[in-house]
């Protein structure tokens, strides 16, 4: 294809992505060094009461013609980052009490970082192993059953994440039937939503439940392309089922495992819907939830855009660090294909 034609075809998408992905990234970077502030002015006001009039000076926000507060952005350097990372508090905690995790966790950012990372990396092996097991099982079923089972399997994947999380929450909340069931087994009172770690387990469970179908579908498609002759040859050579799995099937679908891992890392790093669905924000927060919280109007009626931007930048740095090995691999592969 000629270069000019190529440019015409890709231009709308290119403009779209520059304007609404690349540009906001730049804006976020700039905003993270700024502080959004009301423009204030000092006015003199006459205050009259029965004992006479007094003039006093007060500071009020300047309003524009629509009655909205005029705001301006002032440069504050790394102040937003400092407010979020709280190095002083961190170093004082470490120097006073040694390295004590519970104290560090009282700082929002480290709490969110800890949760996001454990969430991402704990769910990953579960999703891959369980997805693979399910794919292997469905693969040996008779054909008539495959359709309905794939249908059922897709449901947790397709459902709105917030609603999916809610539907699991309702099973466990208060006197939900599964809580009662657990109480019967363990013979003690259980309140799953009154401490952090139980909610965390439920969130992990939800994410695995939600992502297994995706891993399953990919692995199942990969299993269809395994070379049957190779398996037969291995069978003749006396390889048992496990050996065939380990030495033929897994190497064959290895690229797919990497693919699922890549997508899962991207998706679970931006964990957010679970926190809304399980109303977990009192106990566990994630990096993306932090940004969301800063963007909402707080009690004083303002949005902390500067802090939200700083969290966003830190979040992005995090995901890039996580993805570098995988991205490098994809980069090489694509480059080789081209050459």
């Amino acid at each position: 294809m000629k270069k000019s034609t190529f440019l015409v075809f890709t231009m709308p998408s290119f403009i779209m992505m520059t304007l609404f992905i690349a540009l906001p990234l730049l804006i976020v970077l700039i905003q993270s060094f700024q502080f959004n502030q009301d423009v204030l002015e000092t006015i003199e006001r006459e205050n009259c009461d029965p004992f006479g009039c007094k003039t006093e000076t007060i500071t009020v926000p300047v309003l524009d013609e629509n009655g909205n507060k005029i705001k301006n952005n002032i440069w504050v350097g790394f102040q937003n980052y400092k407010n979020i990372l709280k190095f002083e508090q961190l170093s004082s905690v470490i120097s006073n009490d040694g390295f004590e995790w519970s104290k560090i966790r009282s700082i929002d950012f480290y709490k969110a970082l800890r949760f996001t990372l454990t969430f991402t990396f704990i769910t990953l092996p579960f999703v891959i192993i369980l997805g693979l097991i399910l794919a292997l099982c469905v693969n040996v079923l008779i054909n008539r059953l495959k359709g309905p089972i794939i249908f059922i399997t897709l449901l947790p994947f397709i459902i709105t994440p917030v609603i999916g999380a809610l539907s699991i929450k309702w099973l466990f909340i208060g006197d939900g039937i599964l809580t009662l069931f657990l109480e019967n087994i363990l013979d003690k009172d259980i309140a799953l939503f009154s401490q952090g770690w139980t909610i965390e387990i439920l969130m992990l469970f939800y994410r695995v439940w939600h992502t297994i179908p995706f891993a399953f579908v990919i692995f199942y498609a990969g299993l269809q392309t395994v070379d049957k002759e190779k398996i037969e040859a291995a069978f003749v050579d006396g390889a048992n089922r496990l050996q065939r799995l380990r030495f033929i099937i897994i190497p064959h679908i290895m690229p797919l495992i990497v693919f699922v891992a890549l997508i899962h890392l991207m998706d679970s790093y931006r964990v957010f819907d679970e926190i809304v669905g399980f109303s977990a924000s009192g106990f566990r927060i994630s990096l993306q939830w932090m940004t969301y919280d800063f963007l909402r109007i707080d009690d004083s009626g303002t949005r902390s855009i500067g802090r939200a931007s700083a969290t966003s930048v830190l979040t992005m740095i995090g995901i890039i660090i996580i993805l570098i090995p995988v991205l490098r691999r994809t980069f090489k592969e694509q480059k080789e294909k081209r050459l």
Partner: protein
Amino acid sequence: MESKLFNLTTPLKIIVSITIITWCIIALFPLLWIVVMSIKLPVDSFASNPLKVIIGPSTKEQVGGLSFVNFIFLFLSIYLFYKLYQIRKILFDLINPILKFSLITFFILFILYITISFILFFLIQNNLSEFVNILFSNLEFLKIFSYPIIGFTPQHYLSVWVGNEFYKQFLNTMIVTGGVVTISLTVGTLAGYGLARSNSMIAFWLLIFALIFRALPHSVLVTGYLEPFINYGLYGKKIAVIVLLVAINQPFTIWMLRSFFMNIPQDLDEAAQIDGCNPFQAFWKVVMPLMWPGVITTGLFSFLLAYNDYLVAALLLDGQSQTMVPAIMQYFNMETKMTDLVESIAAAASITAPLFLLVMFFQKQIVSGLTQGAVKG
């Protein structure tokens, strides 16, 4: 040889069946349970005995329930619904010569099908089964079949959709998803085609950047544009949400459409160009007719992204312009009585229904879409 190799030993068979049955229960149970809860009075929905929740004795007493006859008709109408879908190919072949097949006729047919089946469904469900129920209850020996078995009340659904005007949020969601799907497909198809047919370095870098962009947390884009949107009066307008969701969706869309386009042999458009088409005619008249399955599949995923979104809509829309998912969460947080809670469960169940239908009809496309990117690379 083959049969011996792929035959399973009995213990393995047992393990496989247990795994699959367990998974099916885990996958379905939470979803089925919200449906069961949503059709009961609060007393039953939150009963401690699961059997009580399923059967709903108080609901049965106070409101009524579904009898054996009702169930027979329910299964009958679901079966009809499905049969109608199965013969769609024959219907298509009948209509195809008259109306040339295109995406628009496809959607018209699809909507037609849905409406007809729903009308049939409700006719059978309400009138016919009630009629038979009354008939049976008057006959001495058939009376037993008309007694309600399971408590059922539609009141929560009614109060959500009619009383709380949930249809407004439904319309908002439809506008947002419709906009997102149309724009991302138009822009994405052009780019996907260009990328599939080009070997240049620009194409390469565009794809790599798209991959990196796909990893970005969605909140980042909202952070960048929240202030400008507020300043220029776009806050609370659906177009703001549409634009951001299209942008979020774009990297994924172009990767997927590109891999679909790569399945179509390049000789085809070259032949068309030799025959005198310009590149656009070749694209539109020769390649596109073969691409509709790919476009529909990609459209499904755009639909899911927009339909399931919470973050962007919650930050950029409010009140009357809100979409369904954030609206439900507000509902849920406001709840004060048990009835409110069951109502929000009913709202959640009704949000899930369209997705359920989507999997039912487009299972093949969803599976092919998921594997497309992975297997082709």
